[in-house]
């Protein structure tokens, strides 16, 4: 498991149009493990997409990764992912498929969603939930926005780590 301040795992994953994405090349990169069918991921989704929109002008990249076993959970299939992208659910956020689940394992991701913030050097600066309450849109991804503001301003995020809340990742047998 990568500790706060350590180098986060690198990866190359395809999006729903088969374009390959890697973290980095930005003053901050958000890596969020998510999926199609989890109510927690869905409840927080618009807040995360809003972060991508609001911070794009400062160069922040947001990469969403679906690591779930699509064989047992067809709602997380590449086709279902593509349908959401084509429906406009991921405006400004590449939706990547972690078919092998290797990236989720490398990040020790626990839930959907599980949010990681990397700085310009690829160091992990925040990990956890987007904010304190999936039921309250007014929370507005406060933890995530605070972490990004800190990283972009050269400060340490506070908190740097919160408890991820959501559905367990659906690991392959």
């Amino acid at each position: 498991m990568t500790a706060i301040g350590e180098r986060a795992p690198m990866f190359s994953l395809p999006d729903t149009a088969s374009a390959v994405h890697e973290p980095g090349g930005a003053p901050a990169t958000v890596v969020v493990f998510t999926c199609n069918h989890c109510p927690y991921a869905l409840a927080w989704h618009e807040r995360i997409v809003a972060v991508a929109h609001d911070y794009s002008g400062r160069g922040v990249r947001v990469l969403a990764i679906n690591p779930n076993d699509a064989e047992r959970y067809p709602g997380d299939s590449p086709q279902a992912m593509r349908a959401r992208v084509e429906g406009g659910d991921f405006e400004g956020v590449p939706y990547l498929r972690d078919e092998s689940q290797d990236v989720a394992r490398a990040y020790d991701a626990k839930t959907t969603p599980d949010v990681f913030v990397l700085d310009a050097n690829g160091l992990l600066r925040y990990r956890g939930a987007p904010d304190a309450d999936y039921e309250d849109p007014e929370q507005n991804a406060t933890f995530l926005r605070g972490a990004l503001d800190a990283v972009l301003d050269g400060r340490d995020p506070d908190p740097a780590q919160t408890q991820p809340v959501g559905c367990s990742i659906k690991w392959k047998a």
Partner: protein
Amino acid sequence: MRVELLFWEGCPSHPRALADLREAMKELGLDPDRIVVREVRTDADAGREHFVGSPTIRIDGVDVQPTDDEPLGLTCRVYHRRDGRISPTPDPADVHDALAAAARTATADNQPAA
């Protein structure tokens, strides 16, 4: 009246759902200790129980938010609150109304015939 809460441990929402259900029963003067809580552990269990996700609340066998063609399985269930928000648990008002309707039916069924 039989009130059941079925859950899968892989989804963290069932304690909240149980608390909401207990509260609704108390509001209606029903005994919350009558709730039958059952864990669904395997895909086979899910198929046998017609379990479409955790948590599922049934009153006399009827789901408080019936679904159309949701696949059976071990997953977290997606609910919609009355204000449109997505939630891992049913709207407490829906739970309350389903319990109230079932209680009225039970009362009517127990009335002596005229």
